[in-house]
């Protein structure tokens, strides 16, 4: 339980911070696509006998970087590239799993998460990755924020926008695969998106919004894990439901006109 909560908190922080950049760049479903492509990677690992998360990292990161490059060169729209990545990962995964003997309980743990089973080594890995990614984001905060706000103006100010775009996709890939253990492939995009869109309703500035998002995500994870333990239900679904409840309550407050932000979610 202790390892689950520590790992869960670290993953919540990562999903919030990286997810905020993804949501604001309108890459919300890209996280979902990376998660689905990791399914193909997991299947490769199971087939060849390598720890599936390593192959998931490899396949997801390569797929994400390739699709980003294709987007730049061929000017493919964001939603189309998501569809390509998502479907190819699932298709590869299904074929390889059928070759390796069908669905097993291990597959289900990747699909739906298994945070209560996280090992000490996995927890250490998660904490190390969290530290590295947060340091990278802090060091490149201005470049990430400016290029998220407006790519053209960022380019004019000397920021290498294309490289920064590849970096954010790379970081998202690492975070997504790391987060599979918490909420699974099928629900990872919820953790990327929901705390952030909730926070955007409240926050005035970027730092304030990021901190709020972290707060919502960590709360969802801790309450979700504890509630799932007490009620003997799946933690991944519970975490997402808590997150959705916070979002729903915020919408309710906003509808009553109590929230100071009036233009959020209007497109």
């Amino acid at each position, binding site marked *: 339980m202790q390892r689950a909560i520590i790992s869960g908190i670290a993953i919540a922080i990562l999903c919030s911070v990286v997810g905020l950049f993804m949501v604001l760049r309108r890459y919300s479903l890209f996280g979902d696509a990376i998660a689905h492509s990791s399914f193909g990677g997991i299947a490769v690992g199971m087939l060849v006998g390598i720890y599936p998360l390593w192959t998931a990292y490899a396949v997801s990161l390569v797929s994400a970087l390739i699709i980003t490059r294709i987007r730049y060169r061929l000017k493919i729209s964001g939603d189309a590239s998501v569809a390509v990545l998502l479907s190819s990962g699932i298709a590869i995964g299904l074929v390889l799993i059928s070759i390796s003997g069908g669905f097993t309980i291990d597959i289900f743990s990747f699909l739906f998460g298994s945070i209560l089973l996280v090992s000490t080594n996995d927890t250490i890995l998660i904490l190390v990755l969290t530290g590295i990614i947060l340091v990278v984001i802090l060091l490149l905060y201005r470049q990430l924020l400016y290029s998220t706000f*407006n790519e053209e103006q960022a380019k004019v100010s000397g920021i290498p926008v294309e490289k920064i775009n590849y970096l954010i996709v790379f970081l998202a890939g690492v975070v997504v695969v790391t987060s599979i253990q918490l909420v699974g492939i099928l629900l990872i995009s919820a953790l990327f998106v929901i705390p952030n869109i909730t*926070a955007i309703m409240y926050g*005035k500035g*970027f730092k304030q919004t990021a901190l709020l998002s972290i707060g919502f995500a960590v709360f969802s994870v801790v309450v979700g894990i504890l509630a799932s333990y007490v009620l003997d239900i799946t933690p991944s679904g519970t975490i997402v439901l808590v997150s959705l409840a916070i979002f729903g309550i915020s919408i309710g407050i906003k509808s009553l006109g109590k929230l100071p*932000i009036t*233009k959020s979610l*209007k*497109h």
Partner: protein
Amino acid sequence: MYLKAIEINDLTVEYPEVKALDKVSFSINQGDFLGIIGPNGAGKSTLFSCMLGILTKYKGTIRFFGEDIRKSRNYLKLIGYVPQKPVFENNFPATVKEIVRMQLTNNSDRQLIDKVLQQVWMHELGNRRIGDLSIGQQQRVFIAKALVHNPKILILDEPVTGVDIQSSEIFYSILRDLNEKQNITIIWSSHDMDAVHKLANKVACLNRTLFFHGISAEFFENEDLVKQYSEASMQQHMHSHEIH
């Protein structure tokens, strides 16, 4: 110090079906307030894209203070840029101060941020979210962002599009102060010939080629030139309608 802030020689930009700019040549001195006028499709934004290094496929040369911009991007540190329409999500969670701070590589200088916001009369709204401001206020914030790193040249691409008259007047007075009191070179594209006549000391008339470049008074007091430019603009406008 190199007198010519910008020198453009035979600048040509060709797309598969159209020549966006055709051998455009002119120079700008430090301290000039240059108004670039031209109809839609005249190549004003293309000209700026080349100058700012956004568009790199062109023929000809562009030099900033004697330095060819193809050889180094260091000249960008001397430029502040205000785009035509700031394109960002309306709910983007960033305050006015955070937007201005983005331009600074050393982002801890709060006094500098407050100073530029005061210059554009936005210091009281520093903690407001950028999307909650009117378009005119947003454009003033973008001027502040363009000024915060002490540029020598300010490039503005039709900055008052969609802005009400009162806000436009405030905007123009800010530009006038920047040019007259701080000797910042201003290069500004506009459809508004009246505003250009009032503010700019130099005018460039662009319609894929350069019709005129020189002293503003020489252009506006020459009825034949103004008529020639207006007819060319009308032909361009009608040609655009025939295509569509």
